[in-house]
């Protein structure tokens, strides 16, 4: 564990706690740089364009150039803004996302904090994002921002219900909320992943597979809505609400929202991965085991986790550049009329199977 490693290294728990927050932050920054570039390339190639090509090889330095531009930009504060809230909001949004990374198991050694309530903590701390978005919308004193913030709050809170129901489904089988343990349970090969029924055996496993697939689809859709991506991007629908809650932001504060959005995309992909797709476990065994080099295994695990998470981020981008966005009422109808009942029925059936 990372925290134990730092405690051993420095012999001070406070320093260790602070230091174990650094690797996830580094990961977020690097990942966001990559994801923004990927988003541009994915959108460009879907639209018969090339995307950025000039800054670096295939434009891979474009995001860094953009970041430099954003840092240099004037930080505009309108006279009518509620300044304390306006300044606090982007920090809060990013803090909520960043805090979620604390409990995400990147590999068996690379986990910010191995708490027993891992998944519960992530879902709870993500609530900070809603508060931040509401603050941003309100303090901007702009009607479009306000509408966007209201939409965001309604949407995120609604879609947390199916997410939690599916998480409960998984937890009922694994009997743990600790994401590290949950990932360890899915060790071995691809058929031990939760989407294939997890570590259960016999008829239970076969009856769980379709249910797990349903659960997987439900949680993927609802996490998509929680991070405000198309087709659920109504809080920042640029053709309706200009930019939604971050219309009034510029410079680094805007960059904070941007950072939080992309970090959030990875966070939800990581949750889906950890719950259903074996977390950091390799589907085909480890090279480290093969050549008998044990320290290779955590690195491989980290790679697998990153690949799985990035794949889901890619799917999110794919959807974004393909689908139109839903209307507010349709979005709510999808959640309350379809996803929640399906998730509930799924939960009950899985519950019965695990009891039997």
């Amino acid at each position, binding site marked *: 564990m990372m925290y134990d490693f730092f405690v051993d290294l420095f012999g001070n728990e406070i320093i260790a706690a602070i230091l174990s927050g650094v690797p996830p932050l580094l990961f977020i920054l690097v990942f966001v740089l990559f994801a923004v570039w990927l988003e541009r390339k994915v*959108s460009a190639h*879907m*639209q*018969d*364009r090339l995307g950025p090509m000039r800054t670096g090889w295939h434009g891979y330095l474009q995001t860094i150039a953009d970041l430099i531009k954003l840092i240099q930009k004037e930080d505009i504060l309108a006279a009518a803004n509620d300044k304390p809230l306006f300044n606090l909001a982007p920090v809060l949004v990013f803090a909520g996302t960043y805090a979620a990374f604390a409990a995400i198991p990147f590999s068996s050694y690379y986990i910010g904090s191995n708490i027993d309530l891992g998944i519960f903590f992530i879902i709870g701390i993500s609530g900070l994002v809603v508060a931040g978005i509401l603050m941003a919308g309100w303090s901007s*004193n702009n*009607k*479009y921002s*306000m*509408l966007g913030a209201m939409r965001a709050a309604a949407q995120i809170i609604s879609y947390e219900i199916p997410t939690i129901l599916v998480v409960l489904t998984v937890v009922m089988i694994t009997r743990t909320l600790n994401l590290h343990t949950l990932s360890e349970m899915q060790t071995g090969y691809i058929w031990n992943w939760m989407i294939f029924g997890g570590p259960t055996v016999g008829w239970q496993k076969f009856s769980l597979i379709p249910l797990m697939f349903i659960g997987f689809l439900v949680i993927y859709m609802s996490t998509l809505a929680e991070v405000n991506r*198309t*087709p659920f*991007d*109504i809080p920042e*629908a*640029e*053709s*309706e*609400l*200009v930019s939604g809650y971050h219309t009034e932001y510029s410079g680094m504060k805007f960059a904070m929202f941007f950072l939080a959005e992309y970090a959030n995309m990875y966070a939800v992909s990581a949750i889906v991965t950890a719950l259903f797709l074996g977390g950091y476990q390799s589907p085909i065994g480890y090279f480290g085991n093969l050549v008998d080099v044990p320290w290779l295994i955590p690195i491989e695990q980290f790679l697998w986790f990153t690949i799985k998470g990035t794949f889901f981020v890619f799917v999110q981008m794919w959807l974004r*550049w*393909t*689908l*139109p*966005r*839903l*209307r*507010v*009422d*349709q979005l709510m109808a999808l959640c309350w009329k379809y996803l929640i009942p399906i998730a509930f029925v799924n939960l009950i059936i899985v519950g019965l199977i695990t009891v039997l």
Partner: protein
Amino acid sequence: MEIADRDEVHPKIIEALLKTDAGLSSDDALENEMILNMGPQHPATHGVLRLVLRLDGETVIACVPELGYLHRGYEKMAENMSYYEFIPHTDRLDYLAPLCNNVAWVLAVEKLAGIQAPPRAQYIRMLISELSRIASHLIAVGSMAMDVGALTVFLWTIREREKILDIWDIICGARFTNSYTRIGGVANDMQPEAKAKVQWFINQFDENLEECEKLLNANRIFIDRLEGVGVISGEDALDLGLTGPSLRGSGVDYDIRRYQPYLFYNEMDFKIPTYTEGDCLARYFVRIDEMRESAKIVKQILDKIPQGDVQANQPKKVLPKKHEVYSKMEELIHDFMIVNFGINPPDGEVYHAVENPKGELGFYFVSKGEGHPWKCKIRSPSFNNLQSVPHLVKGYMVSDVVAIIGSIDPVMGEADK
């Protein structure tokens, strides 16, 4: 009639619009109506359209469009320049289909002055009109999809339109503001390579249009967003003066190409697509079908286009060719007279309308026998179509407003004139 000036009218409009305080803060916690000012700078208002919306939550209670942010006084300008000089200005009306406007203007002037363009010129005019109809509808469909959130379709339709711009480049040397038509014909003949390029474009167009359609027609979200949104009945549409695809989406098959044929449209075989639903989806389907019909017309034109002159032989009305101006006395005199004094059509009034991509574009002239019109009125389809927006958006949500504007497809250059 008493003429009210803007300073008097404007406060009245605003007062009538708002009635309540527009601020976010409200003393009464249960007061939930809000005034939202959409535009003139807003990504979905297709230029500088301003809509003042009165919202209850997200539902639109009332809407007042305010136009005129792009007003350039074209009708007045036309009174101060010759009929020839105004042709470039027609490009700037509906800038997504500039050639249609060129054709409309010269047809109206020819009707006034009694000029008959040679058949080849008329076929070329028909060809460029149909190509610009396709170009305009491609943008309309793409931007409508973009308004509901599907960004990729827009780029795909832009790609198709780009090919049409290339064709225009070959035909008349300009991609965007073409000013190609002349009174009594067109500026220059269409080259064989232009014809080949049109042929190539038409052959591959169906396939590429299908590709764009596939992304939308089978898309549940797209259909859900447009179906039953912004419904208008045929009678209401006629009352409000809707024309073009917006009217045909409501089940009225009014198309000037069929009802008052101009050029050689009476010889062409084409259908007028109509849908009876009258919602945004119907208007979208009408545009898609119309593109197919236009492609069909273009094919027929390519088969039938005759050889011959492209300018009428009426020296007093039609500008002579440049090389003749430099080498022949007679042509020099005519050129001097037409450029300086205009073509002096006889006294009278004339109204001529054509079917533009957006609807009926008509020019009304009152001539006093001078080189410039005494009065010019532009009946622009976007302006009249926008009249229906308050009627259409009532009771729908903010998200529907952008879809409805997209389905009406206004071009503000034309609406504000």
